[in-house]
């Protein structure tokens, strides 16, 4: 008992100290912009400028570290580390550039029919797999069926949901995707059960990669799984040495774009992730590194002057999941009051030392065409307005608010700071509790769940709709009001107008018009209804050896863009 009380006191003191330092730092910056709504974000390190991509020359070995991936075969590649390797080994129908713009891959041209229920991809002819086999429409059909087959038990097969015949293959009742027609080697025709005018964007995901006939289906051919033969700019140089490393070399017959410049890429598998990567960068082992959060400030001070530092806002958003169907947050005013009572700048300066950028919208700036800066008016700290709204919503002093986060993932400090701000600013009684990640999800899914939860999201495909549809559409609840949710809309937000705008968006062929629909939808869900509380964008920092290499930049998945990197 005594020990617990002591611990709690210590935790409270730390939190208080944090908030205090946050406040003092803020007042040091001075100039009273805290209640002005129109000022540019005052916290956060600026993004480093875009790298101008120059022609490279062949040669060199690029070295960096990752943690052991689950799979590098496209059938089950899932985490960023595995997909990094898969993307070097395979080139899909289309590809995304570092800003998420879609560029041709094996497909030159793609087109949907009038209602976007059927897609036709015209393929380049004469492109090759690493073993010399030609890549044609059959290679894609084979790859997709290999993923869909029940016996492959792919954990990422759900990306193919919506293709005709996919459900039957997952159920084990069919051996082929009835909706994929590969009768013309140079044309791939895909029929969808859910019409979608931006479906082609999905195919940037490596799960849509083509595979040669040696791959075999279902995906149980271990020789292939351990050393996949693909059609990408790099090929395996020997099999994957588990827990040790992966070596890639340039594919000399790559004809989808220019050949890769690097002779080889050495990917060392480390035990301690970013910690080892940073240590390896410091001792000259690696040419690229992630860093643990505590060293960011120091590393930036050392490496930014040397031009070896990269900061980018990337595909992701940190936010608070809001249980808006349950008291005390079932009133939009209560949700806005909460959002306005959080001083994001203070937390970013105090806890994150400036390494994040406060959010003013939900779809992040990495989608420049869809990004609506300032859309979330309640994302600006405004104490008077917050108090007023709280009063109107009946969010009285002493109201209990449940706030959960997952432990051991670096969320302890900032969640404590938010608790402190809400208690100080609105007089709420915040019950902050840290739980294991699976428990957090499980608690969020329960019908009676209330309060706020730590959450983050990154799009699977480079489209703003992937921030809206899975998190906020009615169908993504996947359950009735008295059942646990099965989709990602765990806040159970449901708004017919929002659903209709999304639906209209998916049925609009013109890209600019489509994005307008999604923007309107975001305005309703976040701007008007405050269905979620955005906190800060996902901002990533990397070290890159610009002394030896040029064209060093982060790709859309936050990995080094190996295809363009060249020695000086």
């Amino acid at each position, binding site marked *: 008992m005594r020990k617990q009380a002591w611990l709690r006191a210590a935790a409270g003191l730390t939190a208080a100290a944090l908030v205090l330092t946050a406040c003092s730092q803020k007042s040091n910056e001075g100039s009273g912009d805290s209640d002005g709504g129109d000022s540019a974000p005052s916290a956060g390190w600026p993004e480093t400028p875009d790298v101008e991509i120059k022609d490279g020359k062949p040669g060199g070995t690029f070295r960096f570290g990752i943690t052991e991936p689950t799979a590098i075969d496209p059938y089950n590649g899932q985490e960023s580390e595995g997909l990094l390797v898969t993307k070097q080994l395979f080139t899909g129908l289309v590809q995304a550039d570092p800003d998420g713009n879609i560029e041709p891959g094996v497909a030159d041209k793609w087109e949907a029919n009038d209602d976007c229920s059927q897609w036709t991809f015209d393929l380049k002819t004469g492109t090759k797999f690493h073993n010399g086999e030609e890549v044609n429409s059959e290679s894609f059909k084979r790859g997709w069926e290999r993923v869909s087959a029940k016996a492959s038990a792919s954990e990422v097969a759900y990306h193919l949901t919506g293709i005709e015949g996919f459900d039957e293959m997952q159920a084990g009742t069919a051996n082929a995707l009835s909706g994929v027609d590969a009768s013309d080697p140079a044309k791939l025709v895909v029929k969808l059960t859910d019409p979608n005018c931006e479906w082609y964007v999905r195919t940037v995901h490596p799960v849509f990669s083509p595979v040669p006939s040696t791959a075999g289906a279902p995906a149980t051919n271990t020789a292939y799984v351990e050393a996949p033969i693909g059609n990408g700019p790099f090929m395996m140089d020997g099999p994957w040495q588990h827990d040790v490393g992966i070596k890639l070399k340039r594919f000399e017959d790559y004809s989808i774009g220019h050949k890769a410049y690097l002779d080889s890429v050495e990917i060392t598998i480390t035990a301690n992730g970013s910690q080892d990567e940073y240590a390896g960068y410091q001792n000259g082992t690696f040419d690229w590194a992630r860093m643990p959060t505590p060293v960011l400030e120091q590393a930036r001070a050392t490496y930014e002057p040397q031009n070896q530092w990269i900061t980018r806002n990337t595909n992701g958003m940190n936010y608070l999941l809001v249980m808006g169907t349950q008291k005390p947050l079932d009133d939009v005013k209560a949700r806005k009051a909460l959002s306005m009572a959080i001083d994001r700048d203070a937390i970013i300066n105090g806890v994150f030392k400036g390494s994040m950028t406060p959010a003013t919208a939900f779809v992040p700036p990495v989608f420049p065409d869809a990004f609506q800066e300032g859309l979330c008016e309640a994302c600006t700290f405004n104490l008077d307005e917050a108090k007023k709204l709280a009063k109107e919503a009946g969010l009285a002093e002493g109201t209990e608010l449940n706030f959960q986060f997952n432990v051991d993932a670096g969320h302890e400090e900032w969640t404590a700071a938010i608790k402190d701000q809400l208690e100080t600013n609105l007089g709420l009684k915040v019950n902050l509790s840290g739980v294991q990640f*699976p428990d957090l999800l499980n608690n969020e899914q329960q019908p009676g769940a209330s309060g706020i939860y730590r959450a983050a999201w990154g799009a699977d495909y480079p489209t703003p709709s992937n921030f809206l549809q899975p998190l906020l559409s009615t169908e993504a609840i996947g359950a009735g009001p008295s059942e646990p949710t099965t989709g990602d809309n765990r806040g159970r937000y449901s708004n017919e107008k929002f659903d209709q705008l999304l639906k209209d968006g998916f049925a609009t062929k013109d890209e600019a018009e489509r994005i307008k629909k999604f923007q309107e939808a975001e305005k309703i869900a976040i701007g008007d209804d405050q269905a979620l509380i955005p906190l800060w964008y996902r901002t990533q920092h990397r070290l890159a050896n610009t002394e030896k290499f040029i064209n060093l930049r982060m790709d859309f998945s936050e990995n080094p863009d190996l295809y363009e990197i060249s020695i000086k």
Partner: protein
Amino acid sequence: MGKFVIRRLAQAVMVVIAATILLFIGLFVLGDPFASSGDKVVPPETQAILREKFGMDQSLPMQYLTYLGNLVTGDLGIDLNQRRPVADMIGAALPNTARLALIAIIIDVIIGVVAGIIAAVWRYSFWDVLVTIITTLAIGVPTFVIGVWLRQTVSGVWIFPQVPRSFTELAPWYTEVLLPAVTLAIVDAAFIARLMRGSMLEVLRMDYIRTARAKGLGERTVIMKHAFRNSIIPVVTYVGISIGILLGGAIITETLFQYNGVGYLLYRSILQNNNPVIMAIVTFAVLIYVLLSMIVDILYAYLDPRIRLS
């Protein structure tokens, strides 16, 4: 002696079965390896397909019986994450861990026994005080502190390979194993030195030592022939158990030095809820442990006839 061995064997089998049952239940309680554990939910349909593939749609007792049946035939199953045969994974890690354990034991036995004897024979001398101080320090400082310190200061110097380093920069196994082995050996050596000192002091007070001295035997013969053999028993027990623990993998030390042994594999598997690998490694550790303590008991019986008779 034969009866003693048989009794000991029967005990060992029961311990193994009980341990696997406990372990199985423990893993089940720990959580569902296929439940969502990230920001995105795993669709329920996908979870169902995975459970079916790995036989986890069966009831718990059924799963246990299947596991036990497979274990007897030497089939350790497929890991849930990368879907490789667990036997292959352990097969790759075990030689590394065995090497590490062996080198660590050699280092700590040599240092520990010598230091212990010196401290006991020249009791209250400068050397005794030194041994006491050093062993107290070594036991007090946690292994990971020693490991982190060694990694930061010594790795990359002289013959010690850099950590981390690119996997293409190969280092001979005996240099790679050295730092983790020293890290592991420091604490063990301290324990052994204290054990050795204590039991040696006790033995030196025995009547038969006085008798030996009275017979006119040289001090060297008294210590090495009469005292040493009798005082080494607790050390033998300790070393036996220590080998068992080390073969089960040194989680922290192996992870710290990027050393691909059983401990590192176990660490990763626990993070991933990778039940078949955890089951296999822990079962293996139990087996080794049981086997070694059995051997130690039998050795005891050989070293001290009173044990075999009681």
